[in-house]
């Protein structure tokens, strides 16, 4: 170690050692996953019936949850950022509840609301014959519940940070409110909308607790990737590891894709 390097910022050992332990603690499990992965049987494991079903189901449900989150979460984000209404601050706080709520609790809450005997569920059942629990749409409901706050918070932050003076300018040029939103607001918050969508998708893809509580664990119907991983551990650990690799890959892709926004500034900025 040369003198100059020393003088700059060599950390004292009471800092350096715990820091190294922390880093190792975070990295080792992932490393273990990569080392223990059944690379030779990977294709075979990932193309098994159970895997393909789980992959397909996860993709479909997570995408659906993302689309629904954008369809109803974007308008809510706009209201929270722009509209003046009583209880707006309270509504903003409510939106973040699913972020901190244990997903299992979320699942139970969903059962109480949308279960066959639930507050809303009983009417869905009696009037329209719709039963959400233990169905694929139920998975989408559970995933949307836990993931939509990511979209709302990201987009709301972007809308708050957006310069409304540009929207004023658009209005003086004759653009209706809808046209202003579509041609000025939306393009300007586009990057944040994409970032929020990706985060929502990633969160929905990894959702476990709310899904298993509300939608159960039926292969091909409600058994998403995380559920298949968990079940695989009991029967075929190699399969569990292979599916875990898929989820890891998605996580890394999200990190790389969002490194500028997510790592530097945080989701709410």
């Amino acid at each position, binding site marked *: 170690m040369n003198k100059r390097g020393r003088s700059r910022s060599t950390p004292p050992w009471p800092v350096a050692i715990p820091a190294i332990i922390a880093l190792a603690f975070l990295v080792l499990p992932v490393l273990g996953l990569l080392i223990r992965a059944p690379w030779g049987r990977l294709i075979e494991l990932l193309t098994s019936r159970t895997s393909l079903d789980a992959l397909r189901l996860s993709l479909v449900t997570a995408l659906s949850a993302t689309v629904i989150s954008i369809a109803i979460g974007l308008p809510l984000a706009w209201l929270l950022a722009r509209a003046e209404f009583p209880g707006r601050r309270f509504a903003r706080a409510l939106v973040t509840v699913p972020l901190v709520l244990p997903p299992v609790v979320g699942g139970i809450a969903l059962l109480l609301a949308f279960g066959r005997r639930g507050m809303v569920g009983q009417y869905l059942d009696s009037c329209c014959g719709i039963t959400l629990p233990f169905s694929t749409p139920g998975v989408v409901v559970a995933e949307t519940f836990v993931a939509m706050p990511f979209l709302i918070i990201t987009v709301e932050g972007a809308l708050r940070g957006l310069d409304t*003076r*540009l929207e*004023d*300018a*658009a*209005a*003086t*040029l*004759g*653009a*209706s*409110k809808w*046209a*202003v939103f579509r*041609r*000025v607001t939306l*393009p*300007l918050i586009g990057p944040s909308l994409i970032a929020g969508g990706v985060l929502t998708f990633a969160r929905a893809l990894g959702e476990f607790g709310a899904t298993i509580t509300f939608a159960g664990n039926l292969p091909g119907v409600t058994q998403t990737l995380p559920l298949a991983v968990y079940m695989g551990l009991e029967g075929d650990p190699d399969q569990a590891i292979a599916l875990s690799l898929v989820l890891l890959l998605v996580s890394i892709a999200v990190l790389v894709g969002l490194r500028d926004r997510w790592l530097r500034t945080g989701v709410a900025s």
Partner: protein
Amino acid sequence: MTGVVARVVLNRGDFTLDIEVAVAPGEVVAVLGPNGAGKSSLLRALCGLAAIDQGQIVIGDVVVDDPARDVFVDPARRRIGFVFQDYRLFPHLSVLDNVAFGPRSAGASGGKARDQARVWIDRFGLTDLAGRRPGEISGGQAQRVALARALAAQPHALLLDEPLAALDIATRQDVRAELRSHLRSFQGPTILVTHDPLDALVLADRVVVLESGRVTQAGTTAQIAQRPATSYVAQVMGLNLLRGQASAGLIALDDGGELHAPDHLLAGPALVAVRPTAISLHAHKPEGSARNVWAGHVTGVQPIGDRVRVTVSGAPSVVVDVTAGAVVELGLVAGSEVWLSTKATELEVYPG
């Protein structure tokens, strides 16, 4: 078209804006005032970005804001072009698409809107920049794009908020001249607000002076420039303004001293405007033809361009512009005792 006729009253806490303006088609009116006078609030009210508390705004023949009758037309339906001080070009659109925004909003298809935009782009000499983003053009160019964008929407009236304030001084000269010709060719009424008297004098036909939310003077540019009614106007026009009572060719000044007027016509409250260059400084009491001679002492000496502005306290107190040579010759420093003189014919005397 009958232009713009408006009385705008806005209450903002302690501040009240109360102004009447009437601008005929083809006419350019400048609202001149210091920062915080309410100029931008006036424009925001006219274009509908803010609702007025009292009064009425009529654009063309249409009442667009009248709180008493519960009428309020959205900015999008007022057809008022607005050139913002900071231009507010859409950063995600090319120059061409910025200009096409108005026609597009009026319902033209994408291609047609761009065709219309190209006409304006060419007229404003922006052809080479059509494909660029606003971040890639200069301030002067952005100003042109902003004006082209506003005019391409075919507005019934045009508003400009400090159109040259964002430019550096060198560019401002060129853009001011260019803006003048564009404003001349606009058929509708134009209102521009500025704190720069040169903008008002060069660009406008008439000037309305706004101070602390009230109109303190209104008139042609020549009237404003020669006969300021308030110390603010006198200051921005670079004139000394003195207040007094006229009687038999003599004006007794409110703050002490008296001046000989060029004629005996005026009696009663009077204002006297004197150019700083029309007053001479002397080391000894002058024995010349000048009829107005008084003593004072120097309180400030400050170079302005190729001249030196000397502030003199006396009866009356005035600012005097002299050459650098005169400063040396008279040995002018703060505290120097001097004599001042000016000819009666140099005084602009008018009812106050």
